[in-house]
């Protein structure tokens, strides 16, 4: 089914709830390889489209969930604005085609390198409308960026992968597009030094909004990349300061060519280092200073990429390897992003929750989807 309005979507879910028909909710399908496979009647959300409201002076945009991300980004760019959280494009990783939808971005809480400074998708999301598993339309939050009226279901919906409700409309706080940007690159660092360099950059007063490390690979020496953005003069000043600050770690250059820098950050954002690998892909969130230890325990078989100052580790490992065992006492969580269905069922896609949290999550699912029809099994 392909509803073209929220009311149609609600009717469809209500009817499915009555019959117990399981539903497979899908936007653009660019993340089709993620999570446990879902068997059910397809709900294609791409019929729900259009920017409902955009007020550049209020830094706010509201759109139906099936609106392509590309449309949102183009609309914002016309007014010199952008989504703060730099959502990644999963197509290279999953080998998918099609267009990512804004609803899909929210459902998976997709963020990119700028998450370290501007927050995740959930931090920019200020309002949602969704249909729960009984077909009831629910709204939460709104279109203003400060809103503490009642409980925050906005955050709960972000990253719930359609298991608590089918989103119909989402609202964001957006930010001005910067006038300029520069990327400071430290060359040839090992993971320990790279993480120290990224920490030095992030703890300096230069408002760094990207800190990633691409370890050395055949023909490619290691690069540790630090990004600043803003007004021209400010960017020149801060990148210069960072160059001086990071000189003690290794050779430093500044990538001033915009197109090259943009390509580099797109490469980082889309985890291309691991996407091109043959094995399973994991996404691991840790305390940044734990990243080198994690890299050591993962061993030489793993292809790695570090973002968020070390706090986000992308790993491509031999099929079936259990990264969670390798974490061995390191706090954080590992998500199996790409693998065979067999590995996914054996290891689980999501980090198992501690028993009391698992009970809460199950409780939420039972209340928002009492018939178990929304993307059943995707998260569990």
């Amino acid at each position: 089914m392909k509803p073209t309005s929220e009311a149609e979507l609600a009717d469809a879910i209500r009817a499915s709830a009555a019959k117990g028909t399981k539903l497979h909710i899908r936007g653009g399908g660019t993340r089709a390889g993620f999570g446990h496979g879902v068997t059910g009647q397809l709900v294609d959300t791409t019929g729900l489209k259009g920017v409902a409201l955009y007020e550049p002076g209020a830094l706010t945009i509201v759109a139906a969930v099936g609106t392509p991300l590309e449309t949102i980004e183009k609309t914002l760019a016309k007014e010199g604005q952008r989504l703060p959280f730099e959502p990644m494009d999963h197509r290279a990783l999953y080998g998918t085609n099609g267009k990512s939808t804004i609803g899909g971005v929210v459902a998976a809480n997709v963020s990119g390198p700028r998450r370290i400074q501007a927050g995740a998708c959930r931090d920019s999301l200020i309002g949602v409308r969704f249909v729960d598993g009984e077909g009831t339309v629910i709204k939460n939050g709104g279109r203003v960026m400060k809103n503490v009226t009642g409980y925050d279901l906005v955050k709960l919906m972000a990253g719930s992968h359609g298991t608590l409700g089918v989103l119909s409309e989402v609202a964001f706080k957006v930010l001005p597009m910067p006038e300029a940007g520069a990327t400071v690159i430290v060359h040839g660092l090992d993971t320990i030094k790279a993480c120290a360099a990224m920490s030095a950059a992030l703890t300096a007063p230069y408002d760094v909004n990207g800190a990633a490390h691409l370890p050395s690979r055949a023909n490619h020496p290691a690069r540790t990349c630090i990004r600043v953005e803003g007004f021209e003069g400010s960017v020149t000043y801060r990148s210069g300061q960072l160059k001086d600050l990071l000189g003690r770690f290794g050779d430093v250059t500044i990538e001033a060519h915009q197109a090259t820098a943009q390509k580099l950050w797109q490469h980082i954002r889309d985890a291309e280092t691991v996407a091109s690998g043959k094995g399973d892909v994991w996404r691991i969130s840790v305390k940044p200073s734990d990243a080198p230890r994690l890299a050591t325990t993962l061993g030489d078989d793993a292809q790695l990429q570090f973002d968020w100052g070390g706090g986000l580790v992308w790993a491509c490992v031999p099929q079936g390897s259990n990264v969670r065992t390798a974490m061995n006492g390191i706090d954080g969580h590992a998500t199996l992003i790409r693998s065979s269905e067999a590995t996914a069922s054996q290891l689980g896609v999501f980090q198992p929750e501690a028993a009391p949290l698992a009970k809460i999550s199950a409780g939420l699912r039972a209340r928002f989807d009492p018939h178990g029809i929304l993307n059943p099994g995707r998260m569990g």
Partner: protein
Amino acid sequence: MEMPVPDQGVLDRKASIVARLEQILPGEAVISDPNETRAYECDALTAYRCQPLAVVLPATTEEVAACLKICHEEDVPVVPRGAGTSLAGGSLPTADSIIIGVSRMNAVLETDYDNRFIKVQTGRTNLSVTGAVEQNDFFYAPDPSSQLACAIAGNIAMNSGGAHCLKYGVTTNNLMGVRMVTMEGEIIDIGGAHLDAAVYDLLGVICGSEGQLGIVTEATLRILRKPEGARPVLLGFDRSEVAGACVADIIKAGVLPVAIEFMDRPCIRATEDFAHAGYPDVEALLIVEVEGSEAEIVEQLEKIKTIARRHDPAELRESASAEESAAIWKGRKAAFGAMGQINDYMCLDGTIPVSQLPLVLRRMEELSKEYGLDVANVFHAGDGNLHPLILFDANKPGDLETCEAMGADILKLCVEVGGCLTGEHGVGVEKRDLMLTQYNEGDLEAQMRIKDVFDPAWLLNPAKVFPLITTRTRREAA
């Protein structure tokens, strides 16, 4: 304010309940003498008062858990309390409730500059979190006006904001993890020094849940390196609408100041009499602050001044020194105190889309005439979070009621133009009965499901957030 009828059974068992609490806590941590519990009969919303059954002040998470277990077993409502600075009555007790206060739990547990976080017990005050890291040039970003007194526990409960959240976000954007005790007395950890949720974003749900899902005893907070410098510019305008248009133009131009504060003439005059900040006597005043190195500050202020000049300001005053910066902020920071000196006031907290500012200011003026009460405005203009102060005389019969009715009309207006009832203070008891103007019953039902999961017996922080009529079935069933 309608509150649920206290449970007579609980009132009758006061002695035995207090005795059980005294068994697990040291003597001074259990307060049950009505002369002493009086200090807890209200928070900063002083219009409503009620003495609790007793107050406990545990020193550890384990003690909080032990208290909650007893309350759960005894079926006693619990009112969590931070520093008691809520303007919304977020910690107003009921007569049959036990207040669990976290004020004795104020330690710093871990400071980690490399990973940019601090872990504190939640009784710690907001400002003293920054106080713990500022010697290393770091700070904790959310800065509610009450930051000298308010506790992190309350900041988390209300998802507090502040003047600088235009750039740095509110509490939920700076909270990385919590240790929390459920009503059943179970200690749970959510999040930590790493980013984002593994599965559902429970941290995002807990932040802003007004103490109704659990008692948060420890928090991992993001800390940031201080910018090299900051400087405000003061802009005066003859018309409020023009000030509003100037705000929108600054934002559209791609300048993102850390703060844009707005004050109107009544507020300017009152603060001048009180704080002598040297403000011009204009219809509307903006304080716009930018951050960075000297060159960056100059670059941003030039852009702001250029935009401002297009709106023909009556006054344009750029700070040239730390003293002048302090003077510019002095009046704004004293605004609430100044208004309190001359009048009783009710502080509202609605948020509106910035584009609706001129309309809302005009309508508020009309309402002011209609109700015969003056309104002074001081608010965060960049994000549309209004703080109209309605002035009334608490000693004049009927004035409080008139003020409340006018406040309700202003908040309804905020919702009508696409905004919300509360931007950073929380619903508490104050705006509870207005919730149905913003949300329908289905929307509220969805929120109540969350409480059903965390607190099935509906014992935590009773009678807040949801209109009593919408919770009756649940309360009677529990």
